[in-house]
């Protein structure tokens, strides 16, 4: 690969360019779908290609340590804003996840979305661009730009193609996250000014700002603003209430992307920006994060048990699972952080798959109520098999992906904060309780009312099989992923 090939720019803007391509073929829904699939597959190929650079190992020219792909250009010199993209192991994993899940999202929308198809796929692709930008941007301004820009497509996806109280949910989602982000903006600006005043160079570059000396009292506030923004995205208790609504009312692909990717941006932000920028403040806030994440783990799992709507159940389970990620980040030890990152990936795969499954059931019966179903195992064995598989993955059965993340997080956290980890262990039990309830009431028992159910189509089967393979692979052989993130995590935590 030529070193000056702007692969990162391409990664970010290829889907956006795809929007234009879709515009050209907007008359035919079928062509639009194919186009979207081609673009997302190309993006996936590009991400895989980027792995090659990771394998090459050499750092990019001028890049900070750990970044094997790096791009830097002048953008708005008036404010010292630069167009800086960089990819290290953590970004790479997230980028891969994004590309992968977006392909899945296109796959699950194929038949479910029948209205305003071109707009739908255009938004999906725009969304992908935004998320890739978040995972690659290293200039705080650039990051913030993507961070907020990605809200818009999701807002439209929920609002136009959603169900139930879709408008309420869409607006709530938007405002909630928007509010948090704006406070972060204040913090970014003050950090920027402080750095400028100290060094004379006004810049938004992460790796310059890291060296800013911020008095502890101020740092706490700045970190709190960052944390607030990221905690909403995460979501951490008690800032999570937008999530069940947004998930429940979003179209299937929307829920998939929301759960698999958008929530990860919060965690990623905390890892990439929150903790490195304010290490002491972050240390000081760690007990707070421990507390809310443990409460979130238990709370989400407990409330998920009471749910009647499958999507809402999965949504609350996300609150619970993301608590583990937060726990791992708060512990900020190499092991815990590795666990947090891999848990992000795992949660993305598993929860995405569960939302896809619920979407498929919904497409067939137009009901997401658990009470509608029962004993469908005999009718749709393939679908039920995947349902069971992903539920068990979600419950943290070893050999499947979620276990890996949860286990590593728990081991890492226990070392640093045994009390917090002990609380999280309770969640391990509660998780199983709601999962087996879901499995039992949907798959087992007698049919409550006769349902017209067809088993998986080839497309659906393909989508789920890919996710299933990912779930099992990550559960059995997560070592490659753990290796990729090892270098950046060592650098972040200062461990050799």
């Amino acid at each position, binding site marked *: 690969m030529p070193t000056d090939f702007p692969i990162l720019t391409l990664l970010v803007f290829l889907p956006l360019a795809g929007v234009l391509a879709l515009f050209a073929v907007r008359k035919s829904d079928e062509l639009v779908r194919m186009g979207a699939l081609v673009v997302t597959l190309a993006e996936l190929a590009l991400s895989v290609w980027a792995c090659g650079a990771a394998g090459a190992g050499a750092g990019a020219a001028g890049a900070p340590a750990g970044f094997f792909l790096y791009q830097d250009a002048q953008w708005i010199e*008036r*404010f010292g804003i630069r167009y800086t993209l960089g990819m290290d192991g953590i970004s790479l994993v997230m980028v891969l996840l994004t590309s992968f899940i977006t392909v899945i999202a296109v796959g699950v929308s194929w038949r479910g979305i029948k209205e305003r198809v071109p707009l739908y796929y255009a938004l999906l692709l725009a969304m992908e661009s935004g998320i890739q930008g978040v995972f690659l941007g290293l200039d705080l301004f650039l990051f913030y*730009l993507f961070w907020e820009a990605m809200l818009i497509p999701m*807002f439209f996806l929920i609002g136009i193609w959603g169900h139930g109280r879709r408008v309420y949910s869409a607006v709530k989602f*938007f*405002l909630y996250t928007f509010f948090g982000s*704006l406070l972060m903006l204040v913090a970014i*600006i003050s950090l920027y000014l402080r750095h400028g005043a100290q060094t004379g160079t006004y810049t938004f570059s992460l790796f310059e700002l890291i060296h800013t000396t911020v008095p502890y009292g101020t740092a706490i506030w700045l970190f709190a603003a960052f944390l607030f923004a990221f905690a909403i995205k995460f979501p951490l208790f008690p800032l999570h209430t937008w999530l069940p609504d947004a998930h429940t009312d979003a179209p299937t692909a929307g829920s998939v992307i929301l759960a698999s990717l958008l929530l990860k941006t919060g965690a990623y932000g905390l890892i990439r920006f929150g903790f490195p920028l304010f290490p002491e403040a972050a240390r000081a806030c760690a007990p707070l994060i421990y507390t809310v994440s443990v409460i979130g783990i238990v709370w989400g799992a407990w409330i998920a048990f009471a749910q009647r709507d499958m999507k809402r159940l999965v949504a609350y389970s996300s609150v619970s699972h993301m608590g583990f990620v937060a726990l791992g980040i708060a512990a900020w030890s190499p092991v815990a952080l590795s666990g947090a990152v891999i848990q992000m990936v795992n949660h993305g795969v598993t929860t995405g798959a569960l939302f896809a499954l619920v979407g498929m059931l919904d497409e067939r019966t137009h009901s997401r109520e658990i009470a509608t179903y029962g004993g469908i195992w005999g009718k749709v064995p393939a679908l039920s098999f995947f349902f069971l598989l992903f539920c068990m993955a979600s419950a943290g059965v070893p050999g499947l992906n979620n276990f890996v993340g949860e286990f590593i997080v728990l081991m890492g956290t226990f070392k640093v904060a045994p009390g917090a980890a002990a609380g999280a262990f309770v969640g391990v039990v509660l998780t199983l309780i709601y999962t087996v309830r879901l499995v039992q009431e949907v798959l087992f028992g007698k049919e409550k009312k006769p349902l017209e159910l067809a088993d998986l189509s080839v497309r659906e089967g393909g989508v789920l099989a890919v996710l299933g393979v990912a779930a099992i692979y990550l559960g059995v052989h997560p070592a490659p992923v753990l290796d990729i993130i090892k270098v950046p995590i060592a650098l972040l935590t200062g461990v050799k």
Partner: protein
Amino acid sequence: MSVTDALAIMPILIAAGAALLVLLAGPFLQARSISWIAVVAAAAAGVWAVVYPAVGATVTLPGLAFTGLSQFLIPVFSAAATLTLLLSHDYNQRRGIKGEEFQATVLFTLFALCVLACATNLLILFLAIESVSFAFYILVSLDLEREESGEAGLKYLLMGAVAAAIVAFGISLIFAGTGTLALTGAFAPEATRPIVSAGWGLVVIGIAFKLSLVPAHLWTPDVYQGAPAPVAAFLSTGSKVAAAAFFLLLLAFSRPLAEIHLPLYLLSLGSMVIGNLAALLQKNIKRMLAYSSIAHMGYLALALLTGSREGYSAVLLYGAIYTAMNLAAFGAIASLSGAEERGELTAYTGLGHTAPFRGAILALAMLALAGIPPTAGFLGKFYIFYAAIRGGETTLAIIGIVTAAISAYFYLKVVVQLYMREPEGAAPAAPHQGTPAESLALTCAAVAILFIGIYPSPILRVLDAALR
């Protein structure tokens, strides 16, 4: 007046000449031709200001000079006028607003705006800003068919006249205290300091009216609602930027007094809070935009408050961005309005799908107004808050940001209506086909919103030159 002078102030001359031309030739020409003449003239004024490098030329005219600031402001004003003219031609035809006086008045407004941008003393400045207001009294009440239009005109006129008196009294006190009307060096001797101080106070409250800052904001919703949509577009952009520029000239070129800090602080605070909150549940889109306008002027006041170069720079940039955003918003409203003004929010249900282009522009404008990247609205807000924090106004900046977050709700409400609601009962009247002129205007505004949002460096360079 030498040739150099004439060339330097050519935008003013173009606007004035075109206004006269339209007025004189009006009876003999078709409405279409009049509009085109007006559009070309208005655009030419702006283009001239951009292209002709007259900055710093020695001008012998009293009270006028072509400065860097003029070079920045005149294109903005000209763009506002041009787009207003483009939008209003078809709008006026649909609404039965006849006669060339509309175009002539717009051009006359542009003339006054250009004069304002070039003014170097208080007299010219005052006359220019009053002429702008004067022209708007007429424009607002030009829609004779609608009762609201006349009512709005009356309210605006009465308030405006009182405000003019107050500003004039303020200027007179400053003059009495300092003995000069020049903007270059108003120095108040200690003895007359209270007088000058009172003068500044009066000027501030007068400007508060022009910028519609709380508590002098009450006219804004009524006037926006009553005015024809293109006029509202022009009013919310041209007159606001003019008022901001007026204040800026006063502040930047004569030493601002420390004592007006608190009044301005409260004005800004009140506007941000009340404007954004009152807009939340508005049902009429124009009233909503009026309250939004109040809030945005609160942001401007926040930047002005810092009294720093960055603050002024932010004000100007925000003025330009705000012009683009509001032109797009009101432009889309104008274009979507048929024989009836499309005022109620519910009348926009589903228009994003039935009128995709204009719906998208309106949605873009709303997102920009809400300050969401990558639109220019985000950059503008960023600059304002950046300047505010840098200027030490952190508390107010945080309050402003919180209110900005709240404001997203009512902007999104429009987007929701456009794309996400099903009509309750009868579907809203289908919009007529968009005309090329309207499309051109809307495209220009949208391109500006996106371009400034994504690559603001060029405009920032001009801005830096303007404030040198």
